[in-house]
Structure formats: structure tokens, C-alpha cells
């Protein structure tokens, strides 16, 4: 048992933290978030140079990391810096390619890790909500290739990606695990329409329609109809990354709030002298430690059995979802009016924290899912 980072992870963490401190202040961040793509290609290639993107992938795939604690280390700092660059999209799209791709397909990862290619995972659909297996988009055999029809919803960075990894049903019914395939689709393919938009927490996403999109045989990732296990593992990585990002954002909220409680005076004393606020702050501290432990569990279980992994990941996502909302709401409330303003950074952290719960499964979804998996496992 060892709860300390490796030297590499500590270096990675320091590098990213320093970069954010030097180049990614909140004003810069707002400007980038408001730009047409919602991220900065320039910063993105610097991330590549610093090895941040590479840290998300295993050596076998051209990276130098890719483990659970590599992900959690990077995303914790992403959360701390409110970074809007397409890291999560890269984890999702990149991992699907890494898991299922043949050598030719995996060659794209070089461009991803070099910061040249943006990939996105187009999986969620207008009716799927958080359901991992809900796929209505269909791919039909068309000669040696495929014809793709369907709609994908809230695809992170889907308006900027050069390559979309698209889930589509090649068999089975809407909620079957079997029959889901993943395809590599060039964003500029005929019949692909992406409508990009900002999200309330400063990210970018897109609604993407596929109308009779023709794909060649090399577009299929892995076995026809057999993509679900890799997709599930990819979503687990996404959920872990989001949970770790939440930890970083929570800790910033915590620190800003403690500082405010110490300096802000009311009725003649620092408001941190009010015991009601002290006790609520103490509760937040504990809850954040609990959330951190849940993320450690998830990172540590990423390579264990499906059941252990999914239990730990659902626990982390449910706990960070619940505690993230609590931290966001309590930090604003304990501040009062100032935290309601755009100018004060806290509100932006709060928005991100609350919205993380809307990505890849919220508290209720993952709580029910945990209960189901535990019931099946009989634990």
C-alpha cells in the first residue's frame, strides 16, 4: 500500500500546475472558453510538448503513462486550473482507438499525442441520457464498407475534432450490449453535420447528425458488434477523469472559501469566527477527503476485474457528484453575494463542479448502477 505519487507523476503534476499558473489565469481561460472552438490550439500543442497528452496513454500506444493514477493526477490539475482544453475528449476518443484499433488505426494516436489531431467520442444520443448501452445510431453494411445514420448528442469538442469515434449499432436492439460497434469517422465526411455550442461551464460540445455517411471497411474499430467492453472501459476512464477533475475544483473552492472566511469581516469579526460556518466548513473538508478517497479507489481499480472497476468508478462518480454539488453550493452560500459575480472565480468552479455531475452519469445514475452491480455480484 502506498498513497504517494511516483516521481514521474509528481513531476507531471508540478509541470502542469506551473504551466497553468503561468499561462492559464482565469481571464485567459475565459477568453479561450469564449473563442469559436472553445479551446486554444496553441495551448494544446504546448500541452503536447509538456507531455500532458502523452501521460494519458500507455507506452504501447505511444504515450508514457495511461494508468489510473496518471489520469487522476492530470485531471486533478485540470480541475484546479479550470482548463477547457480537449483532454477528456482525447482520453475518450484516444482510448477507444487504443483499445480496439489495429496497427493502422492506432497510428492516429501519434497525432493525438502530438497535439495535432483532435479526436472525440460521439456516443451519447438525444434519447440516451446516461445509459451506456443506449445506441440507436445504425451502421449498415454497404459493400466493403458501411453506411451510418443517426444523431449524437452533447459530444465534447465534437465541433473541433478531426476524427470522430462513433458508436453505432450493427446488430441487436437499442439496449443490448452486443451489437454495438465503434467507427472512425472523419469529421469532414459527406453527410456529417456538427452544430457546436458552448456549455454553461465553459466547455464546448456539439450535436452531430450522420446522414447516410459512407465509410470504408477500415473505419470499423475491433470486432463488429463487439465494441461494448472497450467502450465501457473507455467510459470508466472518462468518469474517473471527471471525478479527479472534481477533486481539483473542490479543493480550490475550499481554499478560496477558507481564505474568505478568514479575511471577510461582518458584525465586527472575521466571519470565520462564526461557529455555524466553521462546522459547515469542517464538514466540507471531510467530505472532500472522502471524495478523494473514492477517486483513489477508482484509479487503483481501473485495471482490476470489470466488476471491481465499475463499482469503484460508479462510487467515485456518485460521490464526487454529490459532494461536488455540496461544495459548490456551500462555498457560494458561505461567501454571500460576491460569489454570485462573474468577476469572482469561485462561481466558475461551482458551475464546473455541478456540471460534472451531468457528464457520463449523475449521482442517481451511478448510485443505482452501483447497487445493481453489487446485487449481481452478491457482495
Amino acid at each position, binding site marked *: 500500500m502506498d498513497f504517494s505519487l511516483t516521481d514521474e507523476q509528481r513531476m507531471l503534476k508540478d509541470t502542469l500546475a506551473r504551466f497553468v499558473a503561468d499561462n492559464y489565469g482565469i481571464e485567459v481561460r475565459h477568453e479561450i472558453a469564449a473563442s469559436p472552438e472553445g479551446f486554444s490550439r496553441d495551448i494544446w500543442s504546448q500541452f503536447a510538448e509538456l507531455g500532458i497528452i502523452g501521460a494519458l496513454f500507455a507506452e504501447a500506444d505511444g504515450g508514457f503513462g495511461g494508468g489510473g493514477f496518471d489520469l487522476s493526477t492530470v485531471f486533478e490539475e485540470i480541475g484546479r486550473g479550470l482548463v477547457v482544453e480537449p483532454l477528456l475528449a482525447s482520453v475518450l476518443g484516444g482510448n477507444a482507438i487504443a483499445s480496439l484499433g489495429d496497427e493502422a488505426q492506432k497510428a492516429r494516436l501519434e497525432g493525438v499525442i502530438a497535439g495535432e489531431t483532435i479526436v472525440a467520442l460521439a456516443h451519447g444520443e438525444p434519447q440516451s441520457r446516461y445509459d451506456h448501452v443506449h445506441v440507436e445510431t445504425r451502421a449498415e453494411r454497404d459493400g466493403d464498407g458501411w453506411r451510418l445514420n443517426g444523431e449524437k448528442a452533447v459530444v465534447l469538442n465534437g465541433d473541433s475534432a478531426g476524427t470522430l469515434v462513433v458508436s453505432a449499432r450493427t446488430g441487436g436492439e437499442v439496449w443490448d450490449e452486443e451489437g454495438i460497434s465503434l467507427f472512425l469517422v472523419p469529421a469532414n465526411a459527406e453527410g456529417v453535420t456538427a452544430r457546436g455550442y458552448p456549455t*454553461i461551464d465553459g466547455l464546448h460540445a456539439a450535436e452531430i447528425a450522420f446522414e447516410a455517411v459512407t465509410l470504408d471497411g477500415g473505419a470499423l474499430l475491433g470486432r463488429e458488434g463487439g465494441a461494448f467492453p472497450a467502450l465501457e472501459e473507455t467510459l470508466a476512464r472518462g468518469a474517473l477523469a471527471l471525478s479527479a477533475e472534481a477533486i481539483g475544483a473542490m479543493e480550490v473552492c475550499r481554499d478560496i472559501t477558507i481564505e474568505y472566511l478568514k479575511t471577510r469581516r*461582518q458584525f465586527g469579526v472575521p466571519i470565520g469566527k462564526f461557529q455555524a460556518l466553521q462546522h459547515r466548513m469542517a464538514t466540507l473538508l471531510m467530505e472532500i477527503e472522502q471524495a478523494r478517497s473514492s477517486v483513489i479507489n477508482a484509479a487503483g481499480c481501473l485495471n482490476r476485474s470489470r466488476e471491481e472497476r465499475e463499482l469503484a468508478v460508479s462510487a467515485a462518480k456518485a460521490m464526487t457528484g454529490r459532494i461536488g454539488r455540496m461544495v459548490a453550493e456551500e462555498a*457560494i*452560500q458561505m461567501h454571500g*453575494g460576491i460569489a*454570485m*459575480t462573474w*468577476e469572482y472565480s469561485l462561481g466558475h468552479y461551482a458551475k464546473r463542479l455541478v456540471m460534472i455531475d451531468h457528464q457520463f452519469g449523475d449521482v442517481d445514475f451511478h*448510485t443505482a448502477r452501483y447497487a445493481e452491480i453489487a446485487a449481481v455480484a452478491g457482495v
Partner: protein
Amino acid sequence: MDISYSAEDLAFREKVRAFLQERLPRTLSEKVRRNQHLSRDDMEQWHGILNDKGWLAQDWPKEHGGAGWTTVQQQIFEDEAAAANAPRIVPFGLKMLAPVLMKFGSPEQKDRYLPRILNGSDWWCQGYSEPGAGSDLASLKTRAVRDGDHYVVNGQKTWTTLGQHANKIFCLVRTSTEGKPQEGISFLLIDMDTPGITIRPIILLEGTHEVNEVFFDDVRVPIENLVGEENKGWTYAKYLLTHERTNIAGVGFSRAALAHVKAIARDQKVRGRPLINDPLFAARIAKVEMELAALATTNLRVLSAPDAAANAGPISSMLKIKGTEIRQELNDLARRALGPYALPFVSEALEPGWNGEPIGPEDAAGVAADYFNNRKISIYGGSNEVQRNIISKMVMGL
């Protein structure tokens, strides 16, 4: 005991419903339903319609042109108006300044200002809060120094809601530094176009412009704009707080918000089944629905109690806390219900006149923004922490 409304109240409710159906413009109710921002014209249009009917100043006595409604009638109107997605009545002139003027203003002030509030000639905003004062109003620093026939005002107000539309502001200012902090405060009426006033928008965390900072730099205010006596302003401001009893709980708004949550939850599906039938989500809705039904009764108990005035302070505090907790919970459920579609945020979609195609469910655009925006309701008007202090002191004697 009898929890039914009287026949008179039921008839009144019917009258209100008929009025709303007939006179509330659909352009307005649609904006409200979709959480779109209302323009100044929108708000003035609705005020005008109400004023034509004599229903704008609901709690004013008839001699001042008010409707003279009972508190229960006012509550019925609020409930029905919220259910019909009517715009809220802008309260600063009608519900905050007017009662003070009626009770403490000079005959000239009453004659001059009350009609202009009614007919929309004046748009008032409130100058209470200051940077660094927050819920501790007694510590305010904006000074008014007597100079001949004028006060010279210097200082800064903040959180001035809809100040960007106002031509008048009523302010608490410090006219003396002697005695307790509450004792040197006066209540002044100020023209917003007086030289030396600047107004600066404060953008809220979700990007909207509702509140402002107002700066006073040697602003000369005629002494006849003092309300009541000098240094008694704290008394007048407190009168308002204890006087205000209707709609603190916001039951009508919460009922409308509950209907909205249910509409979203019927539309959203989980494995083909409406979200509203998902056991965990259904329990969340049921819990807040039961709370709201209880709050409606708590509210009516207060409104109809003969000794309500005596208890108004702490009981208002209870209604404020529970009312905001329930409303915030409903805002939370609405965003939860949307799932991933809470994320897209096309801010233009919230502006008047936008006609683009919505992303995701039809009225999803403002839901997440509304959730964040409404974090304010447990902060302003005396934070819920200050309300709990009041309950401890006044009800429990702790």
C-alpha cells in the same frame, strides 16, 4: 379548523384566473416559461395591464389607488400569476418604497411619488447594500452631509437590482456617526440623473446583468427628499422587513417550478420509461412536492393568524428559509432532469426575440442558468444564516 378557502376567496381566484387568461400576453408568458430575460418594455407592459385593471398596487389601501386586497387575496394572485407564467411585479417602488412613504413620508412625498409609481413614470431601485456590508446593514458607510438645502452624498451602493432601468433610487445613508451604528442612518430619495451618480453593471456568474453598483460622488440631494426624520432611517427600513409578509415563501413560483420539473421529467426517458417514473427521481419529486404542500399551509397559517403582525419577524424568517430551500431544490431537480442537456448554453436563446432552433428539449435553454442564478435567493434580503440568527434570538431566546 378548516383548510378550505372561503367561497369569497374561491370566487376571487376565479376572477384572477379569468383576468390572467384574458389579459396576460402570450409573448410574455412564453418568455417566463422558458426562463428568458425580460426587457424593460416587457415589465412595463405587464405593469400597465395590471394598473389598467387597478390590480397593480395590491396591498395599497384604496385611497392611494391600491386594490386593498387581503393578504390571502394577494397570495391567491401570486399563486395564480405564477401558475400562468406571468412576469413578477417589480417590487421596489410598489412593495418596498410605497409602504414606507405611506407610513412615514410627508404629504407632499405621498402626493408626488405614489401616483408616479402606479402609472410607471418612476422606476425605483433600492440603495441599501454596500460593498463589505452584506447582511450587516448597520455598518453602512455612504455618507450624506448637510450643506444648506441639500445633502451631499458620497459613497457606493451595490447589488442594485434592475438599477439599469431606474430613474430613482431610495437609499440608506449615514447622516451621523454618533450612538449605535443603527442610529445615524437616514432614508433618502435620489434622482438617478443627479450629477455625480454613475452606475456600473455587475455580471452574475451565469452571465446575466440584473444587478449593479451605484457610485455617489458629491451628489447633491434636496433636503425635502429626506423621508421622515433624520437618523431614523433604520426604523423605516426595518418596518419594511417586518411589514412584508405575503409571498416571502414564494409558493406560487415554486408550484410553477414544480410543474416545469414534472414536464421535463415526463419528457425525458430512462430505458424508454419516463424519468418521472424512475423510483429515485420520483422520490425526489415527491419529497419536494410534499414539502411544498406543507409550506403552502404554513404560509396560510401565518397569513390568516390574528397575531401574525407580532410574530412577523421570525416567522418571515422561517418562510424565507424554507421557501428558498424548496425553490432551489426545484431548480436543482430541473437541471438534474435534463441529464446531459443541462450542459448546452446558448446565451442568445435567453434574450428576447431569439428564434433559433433549441438544443435538446424545447425549454431546456435557461434551466441550468436558472439553477445557478437562483443561488442568490438564499443570500439576498438577509442571508438564510442571518434568518437563522433571527429565529434563534426571537423565537428561542438563544
